[in-house]
């Protein structure tokens, strides 16, 4: 399905996750963050960079991975993306919801 994000028509799934990462840019990220009531700071962007790096290497994301990332600790991760931090951070980063759950 299509959704208007930052005045552009973007392909998303039912849960609002981007289905085509090439459509993502920082503007899209900011708008999606605003929808989650998150104001993106430099710390947020560092986390998003880490998430993109993992995504490009096809390495699954997990709370454990965050713990070992050296980028952020889990407590701070929760405070930056309150609620479900992995779900929200991936949504904003324009990649699929993590499937650390099989």
């Amino acid at each position, binding site marked *: 399905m299509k959704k208007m994000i930052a005045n552009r028509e973007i392909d998303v799934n039912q849960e609002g996750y981007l289905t085509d990462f090439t459509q993502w840019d920082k503007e899209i990220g900011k708008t999606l963050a605003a929808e989650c009531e998150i104001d993106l700071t430099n710390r947020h962007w560092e986390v998003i960079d880490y998430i993109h790096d993992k995504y490009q290497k096809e390495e699954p994301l*997990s709370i454990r991975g965050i713990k070992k990332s050296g980028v952020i600790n889990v407590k701070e991760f929760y405070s930056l993306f309150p609620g479900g931090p992995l779900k929200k951070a991936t949504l904003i980063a324009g990649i699929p919801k993590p499937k650390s759950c099989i």
Partner: protein
Amino acid sequence: MRNLVILGAGTAGTMMANHLVGKLPKDDWTITIVDQHKTHYYQPGFLFLPFDIYTTKQVKKNGKKFIPKKVNYINEKIDLILPEENKVNLENGTVLAYDILIVATGTNIAPEEIEGMDGPEWYQSIFDFYTYEGAKALRNKLREWKGGKLVVHISEMPIKCPVAPLEFAFLADSYFKHKGIRDKVDITFVTPLDGAFTKPKATQALHHLLKEKNIKEVTNFNIERVDYEHNKIIDYADVEVDYDLLVTVPTNMGDALLERSGLGDDLNYIPTHKATLQSKAHENIFAIGDATNLPASKAGSVAHFEAEILTENILRFIDGKELKEEFDGHANCFIETGGGKAILIDFNYTHEPVEGTFPFPGVGPLKLLQESRTNHMGKMAFRWVYWNMLIKGIHIPFVSATMSEKGKHFEAVQ
């Protein structure tokens, strides 16, 4: 002579030994299998042991019985894999050279990963049931437990057999009803997932069952620590759940051998090509079962389906042919729902658990995604199938390695 070495004689390793012994030319290949333990456990039985449904004798046998005589079987701890030298060092100093290595070292619980879990209350008020020792200790505890808050908890994904914690909750409901103390037991199911199971379609059906059995659900719970002094588990968002008896599935990790050998990922699982089962780092190392990092269930049924495909790929590898990209993540699980009933689910990488019939399209006799007594009988009969067919590598009639789409109502994974 060339050497094929299998590390681990659990479900997957034993199956591979049985498959390969008849396929590799004997005058050309020696097959060796190594495991530190003499006992082969029927791991699906650990679910039933705590409730006195199975006895200890029904879940363990001498491993040697299941290894073909022509296979060299070594009972010894493995020290290190040296992939650049194509060698495996054992703890007793033996060095095994290999042409092909199959890693089937499985997954273990790692309660030490969560603060407070592995402390003084471990096997007092905190138990696992993923090990023989844990399941047996829990059985002894349940025999005398008078009731209170029972919390069934999953620490983090992935875990071996993701449905087992739910089954445990369902069976606990039946067990306490039977004992006449269900009104004194409060059961809560706590999971890091956003629902009862990993697949949305099955989650709906299972959520309904949890409600029906008066089992509470706490979802999206990422445990930070166990406060064993105040009997509660606490997550990163500061949510607390009180317990009197905590039955947890600790973090699951692959064998430390893979970490020592530089072959594992964050959780000591070996990065593996998901359709061919070849390791990503070394072309003559293959992995099977729980030891892989595949995005498939860690379950005996998955290992079983993988074994048929891996056998063919090993033969192709030896012949210098291209590997078959055939493994589709097929899993097939009976979910025990208590009261002598079970659900059967069938799914793979790309398809959600489906409704329909199994294994015969339109006939059954097993019904997918619906509770029935026949499914429960299927689950009970499976113990016989396991010991007598599955680990011996005998093909189970009508059940194919890749998922059949006939007689099922499909919905693709989103």
